[in-house]
């Protein structure tokens, strides 16, 4: 049926491309997303992001409509639940306003000043999903977003962190797909939360565990975390677990579901990139140790 050229250089071409692909993967692993690979990534995203941004204006309503049609059966129940939550939230707001007024009064009496610890928050739209896990947002370096900054959903639950930044866009890597664990605190115990393959649940490991962890306990980011500020809500424990020797493992369901996100909030943390960079350099300098016997240098920070 089809008239094709039978000259076969297919196999050598395949082998060449596979070798190039494996070399690229090796470069990417060794460069940890930086270097030439990082420049290539940023360059491509800079070119494609405006197209994605324009396309998202058209396709987001279509996606919303299709999703709404798919969820039409549950909309009534969802509406009722949302109304209840709204009433609860309004009651809480009134209570908080009272407390805030009292706080202002007390601050005035004792002449206290605001410590200025509030982090800048940038709200961004999700304009694309390059693969099954990552998200592209419509805010970038020109909006003050920097690589590594924590990303939350609109309820303040932890989503992940910024992976790549261009001038007008950024790519978010959710914590459920990240390679590094998240240092978390459950009650008074500190543990590591690790992603699991093909699961939206995460695995919690607590070393030096002393007491059991119960289901529905809240999991928050720990002060020991180098990637996230302390106290961000992450998820809740699914099953009770008791320490075995001094190790405790259980499962955690993250509060945030990256698949359904349309808006995210990027935290400017560490607060000032210049100060943070200086701080990081200083930290690296302080953790660089030289062994006199072999003159080798080991860097422990980062």
């Amino acid at each position, binding site marked *: 049926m089809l008239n094709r050229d039978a000259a076969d250089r297919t196999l050598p071409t395949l082998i060449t491309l596979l070798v190039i*692909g494996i070399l690229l*993967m090796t470069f990417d692993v060794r460069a940890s997303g930086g270097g030439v690979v990082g420049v290539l*990534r940023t360059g491509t*995203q800079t070119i494609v992001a405006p197209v994605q941004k324009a396309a*998202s204006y058209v396709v987001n309503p279509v996606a919303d409509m*299709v999703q709404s049609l798919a969820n039409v059966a549950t909309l009534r129940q969802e509406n009722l639940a949302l109304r209840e939550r709204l009433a609860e939230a309004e009651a809480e707001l009134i209570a908080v306003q009272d407390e805030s007024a009292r706080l202002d009064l007390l601050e005035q009496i004792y002449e206290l000043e605001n410590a200025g610890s509030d982090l800048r928050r940038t709200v961004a739209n999700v304009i694309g999903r390059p693969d099954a896990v990552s998200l592209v947002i419509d805010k970038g370096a020109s909006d003050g977003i920097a690589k590594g900054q924590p990303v939350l959903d609109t309820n303040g639950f932890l989503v992940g962190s910024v992976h790549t930044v261009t001038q007008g866009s950024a790519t978010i890597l959710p914590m459920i797909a990240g390679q590094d664990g998240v240092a978390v605190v459950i009650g008074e115990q500190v543990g590591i939360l690790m992603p699991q393959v093909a699961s939206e649940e995460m695995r919690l490991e607590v070393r030096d565990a002393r007491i059991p962890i119960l289901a529905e306990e809240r999991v928050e980011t720990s002060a020991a975390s180098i990637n996230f500020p302390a106290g961000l809500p992450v998820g809740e424990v699914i099953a009770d677990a008791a320490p075995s020797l001094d190790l405790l493992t259980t499962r955690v369901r993250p509060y945030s579901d990256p698949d359904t996100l349309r808006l995210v909030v990027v935290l400017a943390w560490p607060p000032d990139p210049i100060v943070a960079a200086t701080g990081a350099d200083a930290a690296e300098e302080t953790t660089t140790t030289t062994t006199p016997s072999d003159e080798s240098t080991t860097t422990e920070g980062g």
Partner: protein
Amino acid sequence: MRARTGLTVFLMVLTAVVVQTTLINQLQFVIPDLVLLLVILLALTRLRPEAVLGVAFFSGLLIDLLGTSLLGLRAIVLTMVAYAAIRTRERAEIGRVGVALWVGLLTFGGIVILALVGTLFGQGTLLGSDAVSRMFLVPIANTILAALTAGLFVRLVDRDASAFRFT
């Protein structure tokens, strides 16, 4: 590959990537893999096999560059799928259903290879939390799309109105 055909294929790849990364991946129920589908269908055209492999490689590289996965991972997976498609295309040319099933099988193979190679390179979470359902739903969606669009796609790339018309 002539310049005009090259431009057509380039625009198709770009469109597939943009639609895939903006619309398709936002939907939770209908999840075809347009780029994978395009690469498989290219094997049915009169393009040189080496050109098909090259397009597959660069399409995968483009997706890798836009996402957070390891650079080159999808590139080698799409290249392998394109090679399998080139080697088996004669068996697919038996009718609309045959082409659709062939596309579905190759899509399934591609996703399995992606999961395997990804796991080998420490990217086990690449397919997301719904990896198992994705492994079956994406091939089904691609099978349906192939049944609807394969003939039109081949005629468009080859610019031959008589190509790929099953009776």
